[in-house]
């Protein structure tokens, strides 16, 4: 209970807090990912044991949903909407520019591991497209110039 912060293991805390939650698997996985950035293999094992599920079941859920990651994320995750409303105002070109700018032209993640550019299917900003989200922050009416400002701000951060 009164363990000092250094000793607290996030997976244990999450599992404890959901003892009485019905159908708790999604909230548990979300909270583990919030704490660790992804869902490590050993967490899958511990979640399975704690919930009386097979590892395959938990693994199946982790891989089924687009949100859950089995690997640590890049330092900055840029999610660009490529759904219809954003397409109608140039999302496709924007995605190309974003990829190019962050060194992700050929692959999802930049060679230095700092950036990843991922598609997302609608952020609910469809009247103000094109839209994107950087590390959970929303940006709409995006242009190449506006993205350049965001990109240089990311570069300045360590």
């Amino acid at each position, binding site marked *: 209970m009164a363990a000092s912060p250094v000793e607290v293991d996030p997976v244990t805390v999450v599992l404890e807090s959901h003892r009485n939650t019905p159908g708790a698997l999604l909230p548990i996985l979300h909270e583990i990912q919030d704490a660790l950035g992804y869902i490590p293999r050993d967490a899958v094992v511990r979640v399975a044991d704690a919930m009386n599920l097979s590892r395959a079941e938990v693994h199946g859920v982790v891989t089924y949903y687009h949100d859950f990651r089995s690997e640590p994320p890049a330092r900055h995750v840029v999610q660009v909407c490529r759904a219809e409303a954003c397409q109608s*105002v140039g999302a496709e070109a924007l995605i190309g520019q974003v990829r190019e700018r962050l060194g992700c032209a050929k692959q999802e993640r930049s060679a230095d591991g700092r950036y990843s550019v991922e598609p997302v299917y609608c952020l609910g900003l469809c009247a103000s497209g094109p839209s994107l989200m950087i590390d959970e922050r929303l940006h709409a009416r995006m242009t190449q110039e506006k993205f350049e400002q965001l990109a240089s701000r990311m570069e300045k951060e360590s």
Partner: protein
Amino acid sequence: MKEVTVYVPKDSAALAVGANEVAAALQVQCGDRGLPIRIVRNGSRGLLWLEPLVEVATTGGRVAYGPVTVDDVPGLLDAGLLEGAPHALCQGAVEAIPYLATQERLTFARVGVNDPLSITDYEALDGFSGLRRAATLDSTAIIEEVTNSGLRGRGGAAFPTGIKWKTVRLAEGPQKYVVCNADEGDSGTFSDRMTMEGDPFMLIEGMAITALAAEATEGYIYIRSEYPHAIASMNEAIARAEAAGFLGDDVAGSGKSFRLSVRKAAGAYVCGEETAMLESIEGKRGIVRSKPPLPALQGLFGKPTVINNVITFASVPIILSRGAEFYRDYGVGRSRGTLPLQLAGNIKYGGLIEKAFGVTLRQLIYEYGGGTRSGRPVKAVQVGGPLGAYVPESQWDVPLDYEAYAAMGAAIGHGGIVVHDDTANLSKLARYAMEYCAIESCGKCTPCRIGSTRGVEVIDRITAGGTAVASQSEQVELLRSLCDTMLNGSLCALGAMIPFPVLSALNQYPADFRIVEPAHPRAAS
């Protein structure tokens, strides 16, 4: 000097274009100038091209300015923003802006007006009066009121809401659930999000009334993970409603209990399908269940469950407070009441427009929307999300009505309207539809899982050009028969409706598919 109230929206669509920065700049610069202000973070009025839309309370009512950037703030203050003075960005009295003034806002009446998380503000504008009335009625009387209002589900399938509730009420079992579908996966739609961010108590009130009607004691709101602000808003509103006695052991003095919690989805479009959503809340992969059994009888954890869309629940409080007849008086045919439409894509004045059924697409696109944002001609309009058809111009004067749309092979769905200008290539959009289906398919049925990937390949072969005309028409035939198979052999609307955008694109825009001979419209739309 007297303190002036200034409104700066905190809706996602305002935050995404800098509303927080504008609010901070106002606070600091008014402080520097010794101008006392109180900033209220309201929801959005839905005039989204004007966001961030700053409003100032004056003796003559609220005056609007937008779109405001941080750089505009000093000039606005110089001009006399706090007195509602003229400025290039001044839009005049907000409630007189025609876009807003001509709407029929029943569900969105409060959105954008006040602090969405203030119960006092909510009650000052008729909030919780529907629930207070429901708490004095027995469950059959509540259901009768909703049935008589003519309300149908706003999530897409338009099923009569009262009938669904009645099935759950009559089902046997000590434990029943109310589940809100807030997955809002359809691109081009955002009315659920605006409701949850802009008037969360309305959704809570609607769900609490439903719980009394269906005799359910527990509820979930399943919200897509792409909506972090809606999730935060609902969690806070639930806590406040519980503290104020509108949720919990004794809902609004009814003596009945109802507990509500939020579930965050995990980025799977198909989990908006109601049975896949139930699987997901139960902690499983979101695979569509076969029906029967109906979720109304065996739903969440196998128990009787009411599932409705956010807007369906949000329409209920006013039906209870003003009566079934008041609501039913809006609309046409069997489509009663109002629908919050979402005007999106390449549109000059995009936003939320709540109108009675019967409004036309042409009115929406031109009278409200002002045509395309690019200024080029409108080429294509997709109604009803990614599974909706491209509605040809010859049908833009058809009154919006579930039956009329079904008759022309289209669907209103969740009320999303996405406009494309003449630079759009409809074969690319058709290909995208198939690709999207392949990405999001739950995998249960072959026509959807495999057919969608085949669809991408066939469209690629059609548009490749250089192929002999005979072989191209063979490929077109193949695409049509593939669509037929998907339409008839899919368990849910993802596989069964993806043919709508694909075939309507093919039939109306054969040139985009590099088809020289006109494609003969055979299948629906």
